[in-house]
């Protein structure tokens, strides 16, 4: 079904960030990382060449899920955890729309974990942005499934004993075709990832590390701090060796024996650039991306960027359309007549 209206819509005139700002006052805490993500999205959308009315933002419940109210497109602030399912229904019945999901680590991975992995498995063409602040913000500070061990929160006064999910490992284990990580405050890298996600066919899953100034302040400081950043981050670039550090002289080598990556330094112990693993977003197997998803402090830098981006299977809505086309070719366009006798014998009474 194509919206009759979207057919009528004129060629998109040049849109600007302003066009994507709604009239609602943004109500996050001053200093919240959500502001930066909002700005990045509002800046990215007009660059995509898509009419504003063709976007729909769907969210669940949480601070992060207030997102749709602030973006001047179609939007739905739904119920806790269900955004991927609602968005799936919308995208499947309206493949002409660009459907984005804004969710949190609680909304998307706790109560909504199942819908998230099923959307990813089906490869529904959704752009899912998961705001990971490792805490339940809106309900004032309980731990989430990404909170770290030992974290003291409202519901773990003596420290958290739930070991966390790694959102990217979850997405890859669920057959993700586009899996990426970004940081709220790194506007450029975030915008790049958003742009890449926008053009991906199928589910694009992006974890954005987001600071909650009130209930989990500084969770990602090591990754953001000017001094530690270069050593703490591993920026992923397709086709490029995995190098990091201020001098870009550290790298990731694969140890076949231990079947583990290891951090090495170029030039030390005879390490050459050819020894360094080369990033391949398009690897058919998710094994490389999965291995990367396991890397992080304290022994490894944290990879940032696109872990995996493959078009090995059709987007779900494409399969739906295709199946309809093939069936219609075989059975003919449906009519009331065909409908009423579907799969049944009929007889005439005179």
């Amino acid at each position, binding site marked *: 079904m194509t919206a009759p*209206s979207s057919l009528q819509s004129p060629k998109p005139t040049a849109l600007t960030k302003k066009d994507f700002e709604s009239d609602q006052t943004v109500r996050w805490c001053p200093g919240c990382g959500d502001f930066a993500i909002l700005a990045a999205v509002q800046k990215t959308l007009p660059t995509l060449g898509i009419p504003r009315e063709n976007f729909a933002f769907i969210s669940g419940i949480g601070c992060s899920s207030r997102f749709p109210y602030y973006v001047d497109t179609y939007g739905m602030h739904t119920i806790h955890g269900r955004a991927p399912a609602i968005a799936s229904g919308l995208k499947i019945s309206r493949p002409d729309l660009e459907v984005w999901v804004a969710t949190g680590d609680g909304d998307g991975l706790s109560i909504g974990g199942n819908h998230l992995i099923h959307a990813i498995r089906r490869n529904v063409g959704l752009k899912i942005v998961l705001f990971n602040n490792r805490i339940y913000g809106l309900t004032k500070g309980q731990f989430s499934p990404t909170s770290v061990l030992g974290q003291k929160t409202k519901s773990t006064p003596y420290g958290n004993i739930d070991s966390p999910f790694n959102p990217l490992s979850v997405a890859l284990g669920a057959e993700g075709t586009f899996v990426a990580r970004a940081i709220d405050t790194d506007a450029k890298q975030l915008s790049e990832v958003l742009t890449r996600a926008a053009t991906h066919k199928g589910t694009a899953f992006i974890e954005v590390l987001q600071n909650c100034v009130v209930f989990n302040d500084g969770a990602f400081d090591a990754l953001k701090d000017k001094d530690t950043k270069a050593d703490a981050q591993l920026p992923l670039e397709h086709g490029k060796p995995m190098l990091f550090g201020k001098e870009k002289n550290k790298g990731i080598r694969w140890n076949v024996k231990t079947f583990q990556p290891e951090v090495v330094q170029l030039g030390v112990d005879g390490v050459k650039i050819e020894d360094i693993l080369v990033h391949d977003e398009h690897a058919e197997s998710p094994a490389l991306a999965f291995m990367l998803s396991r890397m992080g402090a304290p022994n490894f830098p944290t990879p940032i960027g696109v872990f995996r981006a493959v078009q090995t299977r059709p987007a779900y809505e494409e399969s739906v359309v295709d199946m309809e086309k093939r069936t219609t070719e075989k059975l003919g366009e449906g009519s009331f007549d065909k409908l009423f006798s579907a799969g049944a014998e009929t007889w005439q*009474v005179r």
Partner: protein
Amino acid sequence: METKAAPKSSPHELESVTIRFAGDSGDGVQLVGTQFMKSSAMGGNVLSTLPDFPAEIRAPAGTPAGVSGFQIQLGSKDVYTPGDQPDVLVAFNPAALKANLADLRKGGTVICNRDAFTEKNLQLAGYPANPLLDGTLNGYQVFDIEIGKHTAAALADLGMSSKDVARCKNYFALGLMFWVYGRDPEPETKSIRTKFAKKEPVVAESNIRALQAGYTYGENAEMMVRYHVPSATIAPGRYRHITGNQATALGLAAAAKLAGRRLFLGSYPITPASEILHELSALKNHQVTTFQAEDEIAGVTSSIGAAFGGAIAATNTSGPGLALKSEGISLALMLELPLVIIDVQRGGPSTGLPTKTEQSDLLFAMYGRHGEAPLPILCAWTPADCFDTAIEAVRLATKYMTPVLMLTDGYLSLGAEPWRIPETDKLPKIEVKFRTEKEGFQPYQRDPKTLARPWAIPGTPGLEHRIGGLEKDALTGNISYDALNHEKMIKVRAEKVANIANDIPDLKVEGDQSGDLLVVGWGSTYGFIASAVKQARAKGKKVSHAHFRHLNPFPKNTEKVLKSFKKVLIPEMNSGQLHALLRQEFFLQATGMNKVQGKPFKVGELLAKIQEMC
């Protein structure tokens, strides 16, 4: 096969008869039943059918737990149910006899396959001795026929394996029943040819021969008696056999076609609602999308997404699934998006009795959401009526921008009857208009008459807006924590639903408009109550029948109708849920009649109660 001349003796005339076919899952019982039904319908009878499947997928062959059944009541008028008790039992094996004999009318007829009464089968059935010989069947009219042997004889020259030959037994039985009830076997012969057209010719041939052999057997067997059930007056037209779940599916698809929109069904399989998904999933050339979601929550919420996008959205389930959908339905109600939720009620609570029927979700439908969350509720009366009910549900949902709950049940889901295929131009109109006008657009500005808000779908330039589950400003739809706005919204949501009373037919009384007793029902008890009331009236009782399709809001004349009778009887397959609602809304003093046994009332039970009361 030639149709034979008139029978030796003229057939006994019957106003109606109830026949049950029973056998092992592999015996083709459902097929015989359906074909017999079809020929009866073509023969001009009115009828109603109900299959009976074993609770286990494939219980051990030859055991009573593995027996499947098909019951049909046919008659020359007023057949509304598959019959209280079979008059005739066709049992393909000892287990089928064992499992069904108790239901047979005293003095009824048993037709069985003598060949199947082997030592081993008797043992599997749990018969210590052969019931054909030990007096078990005293008091019944028994025809134990060597169906296997006769069938084999008829197919002797076809060179088939004995296993394949055995498969044709059911057509022998069908042929025999054709003879007994004076059906023309010709159309069936044709139908067999069509059905097996793509298989080896021997398949059609063997089944036709078996059919013929059965028919001939009846003709030649001295002992058999013929019956004639005279034709009823049936509206002319094209007919098909339809179950409640099929009718629901077609109703939804037809409603979407009428609205000119795509149908989206977000669903998760659950007994006894799954067939709605199955039916619709075959309609991929009809602008129908079926989405088998990961659970019921995703079933309803994906439908909400589709509704936001402009589809005719529906979700189907049964009790446990309805429980899971509660939060999602509440969201749809707050968003004021059209959505049809179908609850095929089954025995509860919890997993309960999944394959059994019950009407115990009415109060749950009414109050099964947190907060003040009213929505329209309607129910279907008969299998074919599910079609009209589904269309009405879509009409209300789209006209009033609201989720609508439609209740059917396990009995309706599988129960079936002939359905006259409607002329397209006689179908109700469903007008769906999307808002496109930018000027003055407010997401929650209401139509002054229906109180519906506009449906403005994504893709419409200039109408970009956000909706959500938090309380909303009465006009803009923006989040509002304002105290009086909340109260206003609570009231307007209630008023919108209450207003629908102006848009639905009055509660109809079948029988006199006043009298000694009114029997009030809802849903699938319709046929049972209608039969009982007709019978009681025939006996001179001043009893009438009123049956609810709309359960929220109730029709405007409800109180007047209820209070026009000296007494009111409310039979329900629950502990008194409609009763509770009527008491609450109309201070109605009534008598409840409650059966919570996972099965429909018997007409006889109802009749007895009516007679006791007036």
